[in-house]
């Protein structure tokens, strides 16, 4: 892939090319503020960052790296509000464990301990709660973490969707690991651990009653094992990222913006299961923007790409890993562009950050 980019010029990393996006003309929280796209970024930069400002938070990673005595630990938290609570491939419980495990794992840490808080709605069946908690226990065991503290609150009927869960976690670092989106460099290779869009489309299909010959199953999975496999194969790995809300497109744009580089994707290389592709077509949604809960993107130096790919394919959650693109320098011609994709027809298009929620199209 690198031969295409040899003539591109690298601009100084101080140049910033993302203007602050204007706040949508609203004095209230919109559903799009939770979509993981521009509106979410806007909420963070306008409302949260000014009040919480510190060096750890400024990195805007899913997990913070902080000192605990002489050791460095990773710290992450995540809230889960999925509806329906049970969906093909999982439920809110294993999602809540895997989500925080993955946030920690993408920082390069080995997840160790989790906490869990529950906001339960009056009237939730205890059998459902037990099914959720049971799958949390199994997910924790699978990921090699322990849930060591928790809290429970109950709200009146009608004031919640049955069950909300928030988890937080800590992880420990092996020596020498330093992952940071700012480390992505022109020439690096972008790897993807498997097919995209399953989680988001599984949820949407259940919500909207769409049925396919083979049901779409969420990919919810713990990625700490795969992350450690990658780091063993390539300790120089630049970035790991799990493309959850906002999908692969948003994750790559955020990385490109943080590093001051561009990323080029190959449309034909991005794997999408046929039922997911079909559901996306029906609803007019681009799979690049759809949430994943068991996939990761790895950006690695070009010389290590083959070894990392081979190692990923040996792992349970990386069997379908592929090279999907490359990091390029920012050329002057494309000074405002973070992510482009060569289409299957050989043309090229720019991939933008989504605004808010993906809205199904009329026809």
């Amino acid at each position, binding site marked *: 892939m690198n031969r295409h980019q040899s003539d591109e010029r690298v601009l100084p990393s101080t140049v910033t090319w993302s203007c602050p996006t204007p706040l949508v003309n609203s004095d209230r929280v919109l559903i799009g503020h939770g979509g993981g796209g521009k509106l979410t970024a806007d909420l963070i930069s306008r409302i949260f960052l000014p009040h919480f400002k510190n060096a750890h938070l400024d990195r805007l990673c899913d997990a913070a790296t902080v000192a605990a005595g002489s050791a460095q630990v990773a710290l992450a938290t995540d809230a889960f509000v999925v509806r329906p609570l049970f969906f093909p491939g999982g439920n809110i419980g294993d999602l809540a464990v895997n989500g925080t495990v993955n946030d920690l794992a993408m920082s390069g840490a080995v997840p160790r301990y989790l906490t869990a808080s529950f906001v339960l709605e009056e009237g939730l069946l205890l059998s459902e709660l037990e099914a959720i908690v049971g799958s949390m226990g199994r997910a924790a065991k699978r990921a090699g973490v322990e849930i060591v503290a928790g809290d429970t609150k109950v709200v009146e009927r009608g004031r919640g969707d049955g069950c909300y869960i928030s988890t937080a976690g800590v992880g420990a670092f092996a020596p020498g690991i330093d992952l940071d989106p700012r480390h992505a460099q022109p020439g690096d290779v972008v790897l993807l651990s498997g097919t995209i869009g399953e989680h988001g489309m599984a949820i949407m299909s259940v919500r909207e009653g769409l049925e396919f010959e083979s049901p779409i199953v969420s990919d919810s999975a713990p990625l700490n094992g795969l992350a450690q496999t990658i780091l063993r194969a390539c300790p120089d790995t630049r970035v790991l990222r799990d493309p959850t809300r906002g999908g692969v497109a948003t994750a790559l744009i955020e990385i490109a913006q943080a590093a001051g580089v561009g990323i080029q994707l190959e449309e034909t290389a991005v794997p999408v299961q046929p039922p997911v592709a079909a559901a996306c077509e029906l609803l007019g949604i681009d799979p690049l923007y759809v949430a994943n809960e068991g996939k990761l993107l790895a950006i690695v130096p070009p010389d290590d790409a083959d070894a990392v790919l081979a190692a990923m394919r040996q792992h349970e959650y990386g069997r379908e890993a592929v090279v999907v693109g490359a990091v390029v320098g920012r050329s002057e011609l494309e000074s405002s562009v973070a992510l482009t994709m060569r289409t299957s027809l050989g*043309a090229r298009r720019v991939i933008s950050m989504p605004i808010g929620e993906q809205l199904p199209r009329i026809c």
Partner: protein
Amino acid sequence: MKYLHEFRNSRQAQALVQSIHRVTTRPWTMMEVCGGQTHSIIRNGIDQLLPDNLELVHGPGCPVCVTPVKVIDRAIAIAAQPEVMFCSFGDMLRVPGTTGDLLQARAAGADVRIVYSPLDAVTLAKKHPDRQVVFLAIGFETTAPANAMAVKLARQLGLTNFSLLVSHVRVPPALRALMTAPDHRVQGFLAAGHVCTVMGWQEYLPIVAQYEVPIVVTGFEPLDVLEGIRRLVTLLESGQSCVENAYDRAVVDQGNKLAQATIREVFQTTDCEWRGLGVIPQSGWCLADAYADFDADKRFDVSEVQSEESTICRSGEVLCGLIKPYECAAFGHQCTPETPLGATMVSSEGACAAYYLYGRHEKPRGSIV
């Protein structure tokens, strides 16, 4: 799903592109009528593969884009009534009215729901007899049959709490309006395949005869669009004005007669305002007298709603193919998908949104491949 990969084959696409280059000897300007085609063209980069002297202009066939601002304002006003459960297709929720959109109305407390079919709205009405369920019935001939079905079903079920806020538009009067505009540049049309699935293509024959403009019924996948372009260029180069059907796997000559009969039973033609284009005679459908009791406009009094269009937005000229999105001074500055001034920036099918999302912020510098 079948019909995805078969019609995205890059080798066949390259062959069609070469064929288009071979047959094109002079500059031509053609309009793809449907927003879905615009989306496919931009998403796949089809325009980048065409000869430089072949210009595609993006037509008014995006229902979200042409729905007038006063309909959006009335929708918001109706949705704000406490007894109303307001149902709409997803992308209508972000279309800006005079002061806001339906998503903001929802954040402020209105019960606004996304449905995938008007029949879902009927189901909601049956389930919630204490609520007034209103469906925003917009779109071209493509969505009209299902909307008509919803009304018929509601009557069959004896529902008195279901109504439609109707803003339906028809393609042929819009094509006539475009051809009679004094400064129009369009020399041929790629007609909207899915509209023709319902209506057939024979209603285009008088347009072809009167304005001597060739029309090719065209689908939406990359190979469909390229084939439509190839056939339209061939007609233009040979000076033929006729209708050709390049989407015959979905479109038959007479269209879907059952669907047409359902439309005729429930709707009647009316003069209609198109956002950005103004009023076009007989270009819309409203509920027929026999179904007037399902008309949300009559059921809810929102006559005091005042509507106002942006004065700097040039979406009307974009819809007519007179300018490209990047030629509007507001494009990418005051007007972005986050803060759309005109509906062509709102819908993912709108020409401005397609140009913005896929990075066409300025005039292309020529072919990339």
